[in-house]
């Protein structure tokens, strides 16, 4: 444990460098646009900074990424509640805002990937979150469980059901499209 403020701040700077991309990716897929993702990322690190000392103390050396993502998760929930709305647009529309990297550019011309992104945005919140954590952030079951406040077993089931539901949605859309 850091014993003074300077050491604590240095540790937090390191945490920021290591995980700013994770928090930003999570935020982007939650809110669907770069503008709000940036605000959410900033608020997440501000809040994390305020509670960092306690989090370090209670983590017993475990990685702090799930704790950070949990903060972003809670802030995103408040974000929607405060504004009384869901994301204004599907993820694929967010590329209208200038950014150095967009998922839209990557999936351009790949109808199957667009269909997957569309499907993800229509999943129930907990399933969508689990998929974002697994596939966008590369978190394992244990990390996701900690971020969502669930058991490892419940998380495994949640992920399995999320993938199956999404696959069904994409498959159904594909059938509709091919059927004219």
């Amino acid at each position: 444990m850091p014993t003074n403020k300077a050491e604590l701040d240095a540790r937090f700077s390191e945490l920021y460098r290591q995980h700013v991309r994770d928090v930003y990716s999570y935020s982007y897929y939650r809110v669907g646009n770069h503008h709000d993702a940036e605000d959410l990322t900033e608020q997440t690190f501000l809040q994390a900074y305020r509670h960092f000392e306690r989090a370090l103390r209670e983590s017993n050396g475990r990685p702090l990424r799930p704790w950070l993502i949990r903060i972003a998760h809670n802030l995103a929930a408040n974000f929607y509640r405060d504004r009384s709305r869901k994301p204004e647009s599907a993820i694929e529309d967010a590329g209208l805002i200038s950014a150095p990297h967009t998922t839209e550019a990557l999936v351009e011309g790949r109808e199957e990937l667009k269909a997957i992104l569309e499907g993800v945005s229509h999943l129930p919140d907990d399933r969508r979150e689990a998929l974002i954590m697994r596939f966008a952030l590369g978190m394992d079951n244990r990390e996701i469980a900690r971020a969502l406040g669930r058991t490892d077993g419940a998380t495994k089931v949640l992920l399995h059901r999320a993938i199956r539901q999404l696959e069904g949605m994409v498959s159904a859309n594909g059938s509709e499209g091919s059927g004219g």
Partner: protein
Amino acid sequence: MSSGVTDFEALLREALTPVDPPEDLTARMEVRLVSLTELAQEELESWELSAMRDPRNWVRPAAAVVIGAGAGTALVVLRVRSRHRTRKQQSSGPLELAHKTLQDIAVEARHILPNR
């Protein structure tokens, strides 16, 4: 695990590729945090400062590679300060004043720094 499942998960991984934050995200965050801290010291008095400690201490090292943020910070502070009296008149209390100040900082940081 069937190959169908594996294929679909590979597509899912491809669709949900990590999203890089804008290159100047940290610089903008520094501007906003520095501005917030300086303004808070002036007009918000004890508003959560003790609990927050000083965010400049971690965000500045994190943004150390970014050039030009210092000038942007000064400009944001100047512009936000210039509207202090108006914000105060429009606010019903310290919390609302804090909220309005944060909003102003965000707006000015976006105006002054590029790619936003």
